[in-house]
């Protein structure tokens, strides 16, 4: 089996040994109606309504959508417009909290008997791919092809982030329970829990836990970036290739994130939906880097203040990891379901871009075997035929090419721009 290309990154997992701390409930939360991929929800509450923890406050008729639940108890103050980091606008429910955190009567374990009721329960849990993409979990659970392998993504491939690692150390039973739940409900024979080699303690724990269980394999992924990318993790744990224009399900696999399976397990046990988010707070502007469990809708400012961040000195704030995260224009944006990290930096040097020297580093690091330097050239002359031949549409924006470029060309960005030139069929 051919080894995929990758890059060696400094792991900088400064918070891997800090146990998760619960963030105090903030005075106000702002919960966006779209934290997932798919149709945004419509608010189910009005200004002045009182809400409790776990109460459904947003729902959509569309199948490709995920309901939204309140993370706090309190009073709805406003329904405002919210622009997310992608630039999309949706409604957000602003709730003034009462600090009591009363749990709604809607929170009760779902009745799960078969695949159909399970998938319904998955939708009700408000769960979407917690790794970052936010793909609705219940859609993933209902593939058209036969699935023989469930891959659980515990790669946590980005520098700094340790939130999944903490989940794996703090709640290993929920993860194993969740894996068995999904496996049994969907009738999948084999599960593979894939963890990057830089988390030896988690690998050791899970190996002990799954020692007697043949249906769960623990896979150690090589310590090279990017391991958690769907195509890469599928290839590295099963040797299968997801072909252009097909889904992982067509290769017989479903990939789920460790935090997502743990959440489903907890939801089926006690009925609590996605209302909090475990995230790593780090970066050189953060005084006390931590892993926190924040109510959804808490502002980034609140989270950063809790971690003693020097707000006045901030130069750059990233929601997510340094490689694929989104840089945030405004620190009053809320924590959403997919926020796995918040990185705050007091310094950021923007290097100048110079001419391509054709060193080929970008080609040598692309895990998918793309040629970013050639794509860059084709993009500049808008050669759409060549862009198609160069398969730019397969780029997953892992950023390795930009990372290694000595001329500091924004190759990953160019790939995304080039994709837009190719007409969709």
């Amino acid at each position: 089996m051919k080894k995929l290309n990758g890059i060696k990154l400094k792991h900088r997992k400064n918070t891997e040994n800090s146990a998760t701390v619960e963030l105090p409930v903030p005075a106000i939360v702002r919960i966006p109606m779209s934290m997932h991929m798919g149709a945004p929800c419509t608010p189910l509450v009005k200004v002045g309504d009182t809400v409790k923890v776990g109460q459904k406050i947003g729902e959509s008729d569309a199948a490709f959508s995920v309901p939204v639940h309140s993370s706090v108890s309190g009073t709805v103050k406003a329904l405002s417009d919210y622009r997310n980091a992608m630039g999309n606008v949706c409604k957000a429910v602003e709730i003034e909290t009462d600090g009591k955190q009363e749990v709604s009567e809607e929170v009760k374990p779902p009745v799960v008997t078969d695949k159909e009721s399970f998938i319904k329960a998955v939708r009700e849990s408000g769960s979407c791919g917690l790794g970052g993409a936010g793909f609705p979990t219940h859609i993933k659970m209902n593939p058209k092809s036969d699935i023989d392998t469930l891959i659980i993504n515990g790669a946590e491939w980005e520098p700094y982030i340790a939130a999944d690692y903490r989940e794996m150390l703090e709640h290993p039973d929920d993860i194993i329970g969740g894996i068995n739940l999904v496996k049994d409900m969907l009738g999948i024979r084999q599960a593979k829990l894939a963890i990057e080699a830089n988390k030896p303690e988690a690998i050791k724990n899970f190996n002990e836990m799954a020692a007697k269980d043949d249906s769960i394999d623990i896979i150690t992924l090589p310590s090279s970036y990017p391991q958690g990318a769907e195509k890469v993790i599928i290839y590295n744990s099963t040797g299968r290739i997801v072909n252009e224009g097909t889904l992982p399900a067509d290769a017989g696999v479903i990939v789920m994130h460790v935090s997502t399976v743990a959440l489903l397990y907890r939801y089926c046990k006690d009925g609590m939906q996605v209302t909090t988010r475990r995230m790593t707070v780090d970066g050189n502007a953060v005084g006390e880097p931590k892993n926190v469990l924040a109510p959804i809708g808490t502002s980034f400012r609140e989270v950063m203040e809790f971690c003693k961040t020097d707000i006045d000195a901030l130069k750059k704030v990233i929601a997510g990891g340094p490689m694929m995260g989104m840089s945030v224009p405004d620190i009053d944006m809320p924590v959403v379901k997919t926020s796995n990290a918040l990185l705050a930096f007091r310094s950021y040097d923007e290097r100048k871009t110079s001419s391509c020297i054709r060193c080929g580093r970008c080609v040598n690091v692309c895990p998918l075997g793309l040629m970013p330097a050639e794509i860059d050239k084709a993009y500049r002359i808008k050669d759409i035929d060549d862009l198609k031949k160069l398969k730019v549409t397969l780029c997953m924006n892992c950023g390795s090419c930009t990372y290694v470029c000595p001329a500091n060309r924004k190759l990953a960005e160019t790939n995304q721009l080039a994709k837009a030139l190719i007409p969709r069929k």
Partner: protein
Amino acid sequence: MNRLIVSPSPHDENYTKTSTIMLNVIIALMPALIVGCVYFGLRSLLLTAVCVASCVLFEFLARKLMKRENTISDLSAVVTGIILAMNLPPTLPLWMAVIGSFFAIVVVKQLFGGIGQNFANPAITGRIVLMVSFPAAMTHWTAPFTHEVLDGVSGATPLPLAGTDKALSYLDLFLGKSGGCLGETCALALLIGGLYLAARRIISLAAPLSFIGSLFILTWISGGDPVYQILAGGVFLGAFFMATDYATTPISTKGKIIFGLGCGIFTFVIRKFGSYPEGVSFSILLMNVLTPYIEQLTRTKVLGAKEAEKNE
């Protein structure tokens, strides 16, 4: 709070810059340059200084004249200057070196768009222009240490002596104790530089190995002395420092191997059947010109990509 910087991911980078790469190439060239100066005297150092200074100056002026951002700080002009000097006889009149530098930097590099855009290796093209324009000066060799002028007609560089009883020993060739261009004679020093670059992951050894390997095998098959052929002349300088030039060689490993094979074959053919005793520069130039085609044929295979649809 200042305004936050918003930019597309990734937000991290490694700190290898173009100038870092060029600096490493300069470091790698030092052993051969120092050996050259020891063997052929301080005149070599002066010649190198003139080449470097004129290359940097021409780059500066050309960019200025074209109203483009100045790029002398990326050190690529310095590299071109050193490699050009290493490809010249130590006795070459300085004004000729300036002409070579002009051609390398202005005509080959800047007129085609500057760093990364040149179709051929600037230093090699500079050398070829000088060789065609001033054949006598370009084949005026001196002996190492004594600086005694060697007779160019009967052939004093090691290559024309191959197979005669005046042929040098392998050790002398390896250490570079022969007449020749300033930086090409000492295979050992060039090898050290090349391995340094490979260890720093600046170059891949695919092209040098296939270049030297194919020349070795072809010479061997044709009944020549393969060790002599690879040690004599500019093979090591060409293989490690010019057949690995980023701008003018293919990116993929497969392409690099083809490039090296081509260089080896052309060098062998020119040396064996051509009227020039040396063929390294011409072979590299020829392969430079073929590079875009090699590149087209050796594109990488993308994971899971469909075959290109027909009539597209």
